[in-house]
């Protein structure tokens, strides 16, 4: 508990989980986009977590990369759409809304738990400061 390492650990988890929440938010927001910023159809993004050693022991967590889902794009028959190909199909993002919702709930629960860890550590530290009083 010394050196406030526990705050570094829980804090890194908060950052990582909020990055995951960000990815979910952008996936859900673009679930029906026809084309992304680069003109190609949007692909679902997933963050990759990795354990990160904290100075003096303990392991925090960090986001090492953001990967794009390799799942096939959703092809919808809509010949009237200007973005349709020669066969009349429009390529829609490969975002799975159900998966994203599950991911979101998991990330928010993990975020809450780590916030609780921080609160407990804070309470214990202020208790430690009152030793001998």
């Amino acid at each position, binding site marked *: 508990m*010394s050196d406030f390492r526990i705050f570094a*650990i*829980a804090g*890194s*988890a908060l950052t990582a989980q909020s990055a995951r929440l960000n990815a979910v938010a952008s996936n859900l927001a673009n679930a029906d986009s026809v084309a992304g910023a680069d003109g190609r159809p949007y692909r679902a993004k997933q963050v990759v977590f990795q354990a990160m050693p904290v100075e003096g022991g303990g392991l925090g*967590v960090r986001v090492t990369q953001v990967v794009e889902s390799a799942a096939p794009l959703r092809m919808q028959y809509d010949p009237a759409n200007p973005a349709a190909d020669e066969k009349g199909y429009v390529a829609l993002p490969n975002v799975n809304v159900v998966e994203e919702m599950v991911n979101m709930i998991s990330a928010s629960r993990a975020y809450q738990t*780590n916030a609780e860890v921080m609160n407990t550590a804070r*309470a214990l530290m202020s208790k*430690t400061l009152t030793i001998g009083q």
Partner: protein
Amino acid sequence: MIDRLEQDLSFFRHALGVRGYRQELLASNIANADTPHYKARDLDFKAALGAALGTMPTVPPVRLARTQPGHLGGNGAPPFAGAMRYRAEYQGAVDGNTVNMDVERAAFAENALQIEALISFVNHRFRSMQAALQGQ
């Protein structure tokens, strides 16, 4: 006089140190609940306290040999490395992660309570010493 005080309190100091480190390890497990291939760890409390008090033989810290000036020294072994254990897997996960959130949260709450108990013991020691000093 002061050395007696130190003797009296050193047990609590070491116990708090071990408890504090265990709290850190449990926080690491909770933080890495979604990290692929992460293996949950915990302290063998008895061994760690024994190592801290010097009543139990400890594994000497493992260091990297540096035979060239360009070699990195490494961080050395974490404290209580000899008492660190991997938690037995409860339910396998596809990504190789062995953190069981319920187990970790329960252990975290229990350890927090143990720390609070230790702090009240220390406070109690202080209060009885003060009472003795006042001689009333």
